[in-house]
Structure formats: structure tokens, C-alpha cells
């Protein structure tokens, strides 16, 4: 059941990316290019997704627990620290170079453009490296459970 549900949720998410045009890096880069070939579409995607999620979350949170797992696991960290801002700044830099964030990179995979086939393995290495740095890197501090 969890597998079917996970697959269905991923499929809906992926169809959303494809239909909205966000699976196309050119469209994303044009949103970011306010002083060039600007395409405001991404703002409509974010708007539609965020409002839907805002309403849906509030309906879902009326339930005591999720359907398939023990409890809701919602991030509790509220501190805006250097690590958050450094990470976000780096993510923006990479997003601006490649036009891919993680979701659209996955939906681009079956079309196998050369740029996609380089981006995805590099992203996976980056996620591993970032996780290692988060855990203390060379200092090797204990990993939070």
C-alpha cells in the first residue's frame, strides 16, 4: 500500500511539473531572467502549489495521525542560521546555472539530455557531500539520530 501510494504521489507531482512547464530548464531560467527573456510562469506554479498545500495541510492536520504512518513529522527547527542561508544561497547558484532543482531533474531523466545525465549524478554526489559536511565533515562530530 505504501509503495502504491508513494508511486501515485510521485506521479501526480511529476505530472504537475511537466504540465506546468517546470520540467523545462529554459522556462525556469527565463523566470529568473527578469531583465531578459522573462517568463513569469513559475510564479503561477508556486502560487497554485502553495495555496493548494496551505488549504490541504489544514484539512489533513485535523486528523490525529496520517493514514499510513504513526504521526506527523513536521520540521520544528525555527532558527534562521548561517547554515540555512549558506545552503540556500548555494542552491540558488546551482539552480541559476543549470535551471534544474531536484524535482525537475528527476522528471527530465527519461528524456536523457546530455546535460541531465551529468546533472543528476553530480547532484547525488553533492547531496552526499552536503550531508557529510552537515554531520561535521572532517571534524567527524557525532551524527544526530
Amino acid at each position, binding site marked *: 500500500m*505504501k*509503495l502504491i*501510494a*508513494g*508511486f*501515485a504521489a*510521485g506521479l*501526480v*507531482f*511529476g*505530472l*504537475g*511539473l*511537466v*504540465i506546468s*512547464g*517546470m520540467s*523545462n530548464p*529554459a522556462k525556469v*531560467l527565463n523566470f*529568473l531572467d527578469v*531583465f531578459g527573456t522573462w*517568463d*513569469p510562469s513559475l510564479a503561477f*506554479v508556486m502560487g*497554485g*502549489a*502553495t495555496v*493548494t498545500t496551505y488549504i490541504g495541510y489544514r*484539512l489533513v492536520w485535523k486528523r490525529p495521525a*496520517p493514514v*499510513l504512518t504513526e504521526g*506527523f513529522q513536521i*520540521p520544528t527547527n*525555527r532558527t534562521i542560521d548561517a547554515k*540555512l*542561508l*549558506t545552503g*540556500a*544561497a*548555494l542552491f*540558488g547558484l*546551482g539552480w541559476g*546555472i*543549470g535551471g*534544474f*532543482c*531536484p*524535482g525537475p531533474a528527476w*522528471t*527530465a*531523466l527519461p528524456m536523457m539530455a546530455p*546535460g541531465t545525465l551529468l546533472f*543528476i549524478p553530480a*547532484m*547525488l554526489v553533492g*547531496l*552526499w*557531500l552536503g550531508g557529510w*559536511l552537515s554531520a561535521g565533515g572532517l571534524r567527524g562530530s557525532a551524527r544526530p539520530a
Partner: protein
Amino acid sequence: MELSTPTEFTPWLSLGGGILIGLSAVIVMALFGRIAGISGITTGVMGAVVPMQSSASDRDWRIAFVVGLVTAPILYAIVTGGWPEQTVPSAPLGMIAAGLIVGVGTALGSGCTSGHGVCGLARLSPRSLAAVVTFMATAAITVFVLRHVI
């Protein structure tokens, strides 16, 4: 230097696609009680192969979710008879650097466009808002420099 392929402004398709993304985020919360952040989900999937800071109990549905993501354009192609329109930057070093930086950045910043953007803003999280403002700004500056300065 970067390609600037003009794209058509698609307000209705983008709004509709955005609503689907939101529905998926709501499904993930309703069924699994989790934030639908793709960088986090990808990290969970990688935990099957290499040691990662991810929970093993969430691994199976996350793997299925990524399979669903990858299946979406294939389903689209079967239904419409063609792949979705796509222009991917081709500079090899640029794409390798972009992938690495996106990976490191989303791991350090604990989220990307979906986790901080869609889900975080929907939770009215100040932390996510700070992340979104930061990555939108550095992304726009990056594109400006690549397209209009260099």
C-alpha cells in the same frame, strides 16, 4: 553565454500544474505525515545505497515516489504522443558544477523549491521564507551575471 531560448508564458497550465504539485504535497502529508521535499526524498532514496542521514522506515515510499516522478513524463508522452518541451543547458562542466552545488546547497539548507518553497511557505515557516528569498535572489543574480554580464 548561457542559452536564452524564449519560452511562452503559460499562466493556466502553470497554475494547473502547480495545483497538482500541491495535491501531491497534501497526499504525502495525509498518508505519510511528511513534507514533500524532493531533496529530502532523494536523500532518503540514497540511504538505500550509501550511508546517509535518513530514516530507513521512510525509504520504500520515497523510492516509489521517485519512480513516480520519473514515470510522469513517460505517461505524458504516451497520452500526448510527444515528450514535454525541454531545452537543457549543455555545457558539461557547467552542468556538473550545477548538480554538485544544488546537492550540497539543498543538503546544508535542508530543502529545495518543494520543501522550503511549496511546503515551507504553506506552513508559514519563517525559516523556509528566509531560504526561499535567499535562493531566489542568488539564482536571479546568477542568471543575470551569466546572461548579461559575462
